[in-house]
């Protein structure tokens, strides 16, 4: 066998050729399966959780993520879908006080959990201090990553206070400082393509200092 890398015999080529061959021979089989597949009804499950202090009972397709349960079923549109697979942080919410990517979690896994979304932090007329600080320091532009940034920012300050270490924590036995480096490291799962990072750090610093 020749070296891989040439288009004719590359591993990719073999796979692609193989896939095409499978597709051609697979058709009757697929048709045969149609009846079975169409008979499949989605599996529904009941789940109850507390969202922003309100008890919510839902019956959901078990494939529904926590993110889609919030957005599509409870119409809490503040939690955003930027990638739907844990790469951008736009869907960050707090579950029992800890932040998670809600797109990476199925709704039915949250029976009895307490969920806090951006709507639970504050409202246009009654802003959470972090929301007010984001406005003051212009820590957002298009606004799409913003709810996730704010939820993360609130949780990050609590994480540091609780002594949860990060990649940049120097001394695990000492009290972790609420430093620029700590906050930037911990916020790095929340992408902002508009590039408001510098301003977000200003906002977080102000909130951390005021509440210290």
């Amino acid at each position, binding site marked *: 066998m020749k070296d891989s890398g040439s288009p004719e015999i590359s591993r990719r080529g073999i796979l692609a050729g193989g896939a095409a061959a499978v597709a051609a021979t697979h058709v009757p089989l697929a048709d045969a399966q149609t009846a079975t597949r169409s008979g499949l009804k989605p599996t529904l499950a009941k789940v109850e959780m507390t969202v922003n202090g309100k008890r919510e009972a839902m019956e959901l397709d078990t494939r*529904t993520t926590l993110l889609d349960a919030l957005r599509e079923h409870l119409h809490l549109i503040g939690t955003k879908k930027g990638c739907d697979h844990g790469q951008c942080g736009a869907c960050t919410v707090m579950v029992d006080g800890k932040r998670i990517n809600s797109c990476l979690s199925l709704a039915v896994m949250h029976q009895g959990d307490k969920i806090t979304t951006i709507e639970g932090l504050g409202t246009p007329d009654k802003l959470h201090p972090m929301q007010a600080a984001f406005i003051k320091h212009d820590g957002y532009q298009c606004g*799409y990553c913003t709810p996730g940034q704010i939820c993360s920012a609130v949780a990050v300050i609590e994480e540091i206070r609780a002594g949860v270490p990060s990649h940049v924590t120097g001394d695990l036995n000492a009290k972790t400082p609420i430093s620029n480096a700590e906050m930037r490291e911990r916020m790095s799962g*929340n992408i902002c393509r508009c590039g408001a990072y510098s301003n977000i750090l200003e906002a977080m610093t102000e909130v951390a200092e005021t509440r210290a």
Partner: protein
Amino acid sequence: MKFTTPAGQNPIDQGKVVGKPHDRIDGKFKTTGTAPYAYERHDVVANPAYGYIVHAAIAKGRIGAMHLAEAKAAPGVITIVTAAEAGKLTKGDFNTAMLLGGPEIQHYHQAIAIVVAETFEQARAAANLVRVDYERGKGRFDLDEALKTAPLKGADSGEGSKAPPVDRVGDFEGAFAKAAVKLDARYTTPDHSHAMMEPHASLARWDGDKLTVWTSNQMIAWGKGDVAKTLGIPKENVRLISPYVGGGFGGKLFVRTDAIMAALGARAAGRPVKVALARPMMFNNTTHRPATTQRIRIGTDRSGKITAIAHESGSGDLPGGGPETAVSQTKLLYAGANRMTSMRLAVLDLPEGNAMRAPGEAPGLMALEIAMDEMAEKLGMDPIAFRIANDTQVDPEKPERRFSQRQLIKALQDGAKAFGWDKRNAKPAQVRDGKWLIGMGVAAGFRNNMNMKSGAKVSIDRKGIVTVYTDMTDIGTGSYTIIAQTAAEMMGVDMDRVVVRLGDSDSPVSSGSGGQWGANSSTAGVYAACVKLREAVAQKLGFNSGDVEFADGKVRSGNRSVALAEAAGDAGLTAEDTIDYGDLAKTYQQSTFAGHFVEVGVDMYTGEVRIRRMLAVCAAGRILNPKSARSQVIGAMTMGVGSALMEELAVDKRFGFFVNHDLAQYEVPVHADIPYQEVIFLEETDPTTSPMKAKGVGELGLCGVGAAIANAAYNATGIRIRDYPVTLDKMLDKMPPVA
């Protein structure tokens, strides 16, 4: 209002509201999650069906057969639309490839079907049951190979970066041959993705033959036209609504497949349908900034005066596409009697190349401003002094055209002082801080100003509330706020008395958001409408419009004073106008300038480059809101960090697609990559651009940043990287020995 002569004194010059760092008026909605984006319009459509798009798995060729039976029979499926069911579709004016492929496939991940189902989960599951037999064709995916035979091609990016196929002034070859000091170097920039945070998304509803699309789009009027053209329906029957846009950067200038597929799906399903592109499909389905290969030659005399300068660029695109106009700034940025630029366009079967933030200048300056750094070093000159020595106050190709304003020298000098440039060691690889090699870099930023025709309607109600209607968009740029500031200044009211309604095609056609023209053009349109409204108020009150003053919610003339609310009366008052331009932009060269300063640390052991400090000094006309303008600039600087250090769409040249098509593999800057960023705006008003005397700044912030970083990395290590991004694999074997 036709703007034909430079603006004199006008109410904007009062500067009571315009020019102040007002918080964004949309801020309380964006920070509380109550600003609705396209996929979230539960408030307007109660029960839409969910669409999920199926994308082509080949880059070029044909669909032999599509097997839909299994998907159609899947639970919850309402309908499936492919090219066969869609009826005749026409390519939009602003698209290069069809937004629904089949049977012909033009690029990888081109949309080929939409599956519509009751729920998102059902649509997604059914889409995965669609089986396609492809007949793979032979595609062209290798830019270097294709450029060997590519023809010369001129183009206008449509965003202020225009260049003919070949442009000659004087005798470049002769002067270059005779030059005392010369540089001849090649540079490459890779394909870039916009990667905005909100995926392309649309919700479509048909009411009879009328179509409403809630979408995420920068240019509402273009979009309305292209939706109509693509679907073959009258323009009057299409309404686009896009009040919040989760980032665009050029990727949402044009109608994309989400809008068309939502409309087709909704028609077939007989009910509203919403669609969002899945993140991993965005990179190959939508547009990108094309890769470039550039050659720059500069010749100078012994004193460092440029005598010859040439910039050639090659890029690729689908058949019918255009070149990346990477040479255009070189026509204007530096003096020199003998000049040449040229562009070549290769045909590639990769996804569609098109505008991304500062098309032309962004990749062009990434190369040119390294070349200037290299030249300065050859001459033994400071890179700032070398640039200053070659400044020009006139269009170098047409010396009778002056720049309306050109503060490049001041931007560089003020920046040098603020940044501590005098502490830079001109000799590379001399400064250490622990394991870090420290370097400083500078680059000039340059981006043309463009004006676009822009309309608005402004009304006052009986409570004295001023409402602005325009189809302008706010893509994070701050349009809501600067438009409110303009109306508040013109009508003499506080900001909390102004309401701004954006992004609806039923409102007057605006400039839209692109080419950094939005701020100046859209506010000038609001200015024009307010001038008319002021006249209507004066006329209604029987005031002499010559001496009427609008202030503190009142209208005053002589010793008479009437509250604006009272003047409007129960019926209210409304005026509409459009700003249009004469030939001032031809008489004067209107451009924006910046000095970009960067300090990097390069890890001595790994060659990793980290940003330590960044400063931009910008001269861009009147800054309408220093807070949101600064955010535009730091955001652009951040994108510049991405282009310099990490962003690169990796091309699979055998199968013709971008391999790293998600946000984990296409790396963009994150919090940890970006330190505190500083921006200084130089005092400037430009009366030739509009009554606002403003220019754009959102793209200027990106132009030159990449080169400033590459130059800083060189200063830190002595390693000159001419192929972006500047990653550690390109540094490692050349790193200075660790002492």
